[in-house]
Structures are given as C-alpha cells and as structure tokens.
C-alpha cells in the first residue's frame, strides 16, 4: 500500500486496524518468544534431580541384643546416636540443625557443635547458639529378620521410642 493510492484520510490518533501481515508478524514473534522461554525452562529442569543418591535412607544398625540396656552407641558414617533404656530404643541425629556440622556428645549427654557453638540438651533441644531447631530424632523400626533399621531422612519428634521385644 503506497501513499498515492491511499485516498482515505486516516487520523494520526487512531491506529489503523491490524493488517493480516501485522498479525502474522506478531504471532510469529510471540510464538518464538514462548518457544524460547519454554525451551529455557525445560533445559533448566535437568539439574533438578528426581532421584537422589541417598534415596535409600534406611540403614540397618544391628540386632537388638547387640545393644545392652542403658547403652549409647554412635554410628559415625550416618552420624547417629542409638540409645537403649528400659523403655526401648531411641535414635538421634548428631547433624547440627544450624549449618550441618556434626555436634559432639559431651559426657553429660549434652551436644556441642564445633562450628558456631550451638548447644543441645540430652533431648536434643536447643540450649544456646544459632541453631534454629533441636536435633532430629529418627524413625526406628524392626526389619522382618529382626534388625533395627533407622531412617536417616526421617524426623519423628523428640524421644520417640521403638519398643523392641527382645
């Protein structure tokens, strides 16, 4: 459409209606943008794992009769304390809830984290330092063969006891 054969006065203030060419151009541009965004989102989905290497979080600790009543046993690989008293078995994780260092159990049963000095009492409750919450108590169960199994990704609340009929 050239200026000479355009006899109709068009006001500057009104946009001329979109021509088919404008429409196709816009549609093409927007589909390109949408395609690009979707492709980026799709590509960024890849680093988000759907299976984690620790997906098997259940670890066998041993047969119940291995642990005497009143004992406290440390499993350093999974950073877990296993206690046995008259009521049964309990397990607490010694991974500090602040930034993941390993809190050390003191003689009096308290826990002290070397990294920024968080302190926890025997039940894992925060007693000082920057830790935002208490140490995590882990789920214990008995496997069919009668082994004690701890779930290292669980969080069952303080002093949860597994009754083991030995």
């Amino acid at each position: 459409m050239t200026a000479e054969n355009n006899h109709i006065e068009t006001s500057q203030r009104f946009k001329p209606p979109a021509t088919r060419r404008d429409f196709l151009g816009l549609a093409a541009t927007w589909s390109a943008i949408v395609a690009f965004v979707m492709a980026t989102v799709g590509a960024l989905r890849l680093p988000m794992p759907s299976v984690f290497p620790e997906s098997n979080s259940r670890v066998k600790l041993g047969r119940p009769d291995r642990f005497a009543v009143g004992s406290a046993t440390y499993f350093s690989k999974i950073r877990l304390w296993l206690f046995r008293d008259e009521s049964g078995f309990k397990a607490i994780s010694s991974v500090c809830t602040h930034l993941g260092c390993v809190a050390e159990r003191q003689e009096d049963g308290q826990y002290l984290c070397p990294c920024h000095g968080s302190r926890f009492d025997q039940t894992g409750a925060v007693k000082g330092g920057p830790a935002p919450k208490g140490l995590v108590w882990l789920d214990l169960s008995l496997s069919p063969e009668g082994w004690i199994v701890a779930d290292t990704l669980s969080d069952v609340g303080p002093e949860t006891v597994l009754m083991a009929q030995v």
Partner: protein
Amino acid sequence: MSSIGGDHQTHHKPSHERGIGDKGALRDFGSNLLSTPIALRDSIIRHGKPTSDRAKSQTIFSNFFLHILPVRTHLHAIKATTTLGLGIATLVLFIILCVTGVLLMVYYKPSVDQAYASMLDIMHVVPTGRLMRNVHRWSAHAMVACVMLHMARAFYTAAYKRPRAFNWVIGMALFVLTLGLSFTGYLLPWDQLAFWAVTIGANIAQSPQELTDAIGITQYFDIGLWQKEVLLGAHHVGQEALIRFYVLHVMVLPVVTTILIGVHFWRIRKDGGLVRPSHADVDTDEMPALADVSTPLKSYGLMAMMKDKTPAVNREMRHTITTWPNVMYVIGAATMITVFAMLLLGYFFDAPLAEMANPTVPENPAKAPWYFLGLQELVSYSAFMGGVAIPAIVVLGLGLVPYLDREKEDVGLWFSGARGRRVAFISSVFGAVTVIGMLWFTVEFGWLRNWEATAHVPQIVITLFNPGTVLVALFAFWSVATVRVMNSTRMGAIALFTCFLVGFVILTYFATVHRGPNWNFYWSQSDWPVH
C-alpha cells in the same frame, strides 16, 4: 605514507601478456619466496611503524585485541590515582586463572575417590604442578581482593553515575561471579577444609527454612531445600556436588564472566572512557610534560568518535594523548607487576591442602576463605540472616546505588571532594565503633539465648533481631541521617558504603584472628586448646 614492505613485484606486464618461455613468472616466484617474511608481516600489520599520529591510531584501531581501546585517551585516565590499575589487575588475574586452571584440568579428576589423590599428584609429581596450583590459588584470592578494591575505587570516584549506571550493575554481576568462582573452586581439592566449608555453604542455601519454618509454610514452599538440592544434586556434599561444582567452576562461570567482562569493557568505551572531573579539561601548566602531548592537526576523529565528553572530533584534543604507546605502557606495567607478584607468591608459599575430606569429623574451627569469614561471623548469629538476607540486601543495595543517587556534581573526584572525604572519615569511625561495640557485647554478654529472661524466645525473634541485623539497621539509619543532614544523596551513599566496607574489614579480621574452636573468642591462635 608508503607501504613499509615496498613493492617487490618486479614485472609490470600482466601475466596473460607474457609469452610461453618468458621466465618472468619464475623470477617472480623466486623473489616472492625471498620476500615472503616481509610480505607476511605486512599482511598481518597493515599500517606503518607507529611513529606518526595516524599510524599510532591505526595500530589501536586495526588490531582486534586493541580496538576496544580508543585511539586517543584522556590524560586523566592514565594518572595513577585515577584507577590505581585495579581493573586491569583484575583482568590480568582472571587471565592467569584461566591459563593455570586449564593446565590443572589436565591432571585433575573430579571424583570423590580420585580428586584428593590428583591434588597430591599435582603438588608432588606433575612438572611445575605445584607452582601452577599455588599461582592459581593465590591469584584467586588476589582477584577477589582486586575486584573489591576496584569496586571501592569506582564507588568513591562516583564512577557509577549516568551514563555509567548500568556498567556498575554489570560490575556487581562480575563481583558475584568472582565470588562464585572462588566458592566452587574451593570444593575441588576435596580436603577437609573444602568439604566442611561447602557443607556449610550448602546449608546456608537451605537456611530460608529458618524463615519458612517460623511462619509455618515449609511444607508448601520449601525454597531452602530446593536450593540445596539444585546446588548439591543430593542432600549431602558428595559425588553429585563435586561434579556440579566442577562444571560451574571450569565452564559455566568462566564463560559467563568472560562475556560480561567483554560487555563491561565495551560499555566503558561507549560511555566515553573513564569518568573524569570537570577540571580535567581545563588547561594546566604541567600538561605538556608528557613528550607525546601535541595538538595534532587532525584527530583521526572517526576512529576516536564516541558519545559524551570524549576526544570527539577536534575537540578537547589538547588533553588527550595517543593510546599507543602511552596507555600500553600503563597496561603493560600493571600486567607485569601483577604477574610478578603472583609468581613470587606461588614460588615461595604453598597453597594449603588439609587432610582428605572426612564427612564424619568436622574441622574445628571450619573456616571459610577469608572473604566469606565476615559472613561466617554473621552466620553464627543466624544462618538465614547472615548467609542469605544480609548479603542479598548488600548486593541489591549496591546495585541500586546509581539509581538512588543521581547527583551530577563532583563525579570523577575521589570522595567527590573535601565534604565527602569528611563524611567518609566520620562514617568509618562510626562503622568501626558500632561493629567493635557489637562484637564486644556479644562476646562479653552473649545474646538472647544466653539470658535467663529470653532463653526461650522463638527462633523468629533471633532471626530478625541479632547482632548482624542490628548492625545493618544502624548503618541504614546512619546513612539516611547523612542524606538528611548533608542534604545530599551522594553523601548518604558514601556514608553507607563506608560503613559496610569498614564492617566487612573488621568482621573479616575478627573471624580470622579471634575465632577459634567451637567459634569461641580467643585473643590469638596460641590460646587455642590443644586436642
């Protein structure tokens, strides 16, 4: 100007007019062969020796690597006090890191079983391996230091103002990238330091849980866990994390950094070169001291043409000099000093390598590299505030500086003149007193959890109200007050930047020297308990 190579074509008859048996072409071949070295040189460098203004301009203009520079440079830009050479030093360090990094890649194996052994190999078996590793490590530290100092230089000379506002933002991105490069590189040796520093770092990424837990939305919106999982590809630092960090360290971050450095430089050109004060264009007596200063008849203006107050065509020519060779000397000197310093450090000091990573026993104390130690001190009050919120506020705040302070006066002057120097001085005293006061208070009296009455306050109170947040609030208050009292946004910006700079320096020093096992306070390392 004639071609320096001369014309060695002896025959003027076009080849199709020569008869068969005519020996002309053969003779040409012989003389071409003899003059090939000269012809080769002339084909590479297509202008004369840089003796005339025109040839000097061409030297810069027609060289791919140099053409990012203008053909003429303002005298102010090469004064030592303008940049202190810090930007160039940063660039040189980045190049050293790329070169030594690629060499280390030849032997390094990113696997939890082999990484530590390959570090030992590099240190003890590989020819020059120890030197390359040392230089790589010290250059990484130096690059972080130079980037920070360069940023402080750009800030105090008010180089962030229009039209350089966005280049400051790009600079912020480069700053974050530099820290990211350091952090990802820190894991690769797979020693105790690496493992525990990155464990802490990854848990900092998870620390938004502190906030989401407090308001009870973690089960719907667990951004903390999500960040940690993306970073580590797992829930603990292990093989997945090592590969991720490796990919980021040797590929993603260097490539992005290279591109952004290109953009950074391009914009410096387009913004009319380095910022300079208005008096830099006033004639002075000292000017002609430089042998090269002349008022040429022509500026080779097209080659020099830029926006803004630049050596535009035949204007302000008297304050500019040819880039070749004057600026090249400056760049060369900064490069030599930087490379020499790194070689010296690398030759005499070994980069640390602790025992192999052991996930069951944390280092005590587990200290991050020095530039994160200030944050580590804040993190010891609250993981989320010290590790996520305060750094985010600082980076965001710095990025916004050019948009919040747009006063046009006194750019290119250190501290924008005497008034700013006074504000900077008073602010550094204020910053030092508040930081030292806060540290003394926390060491002496502890914080909420150590006091009977407040021992059981909910976590959210500690998150929002701890020594770190109190400091930030004091700094913010101080700079707003400065804006008001001095009636100037620039003065407020100087106040804020100075407070944070002083805070950073003191916290870094404090965490380096006075924090020991269990993050307890010690006067010196010799007082640490032996275990």
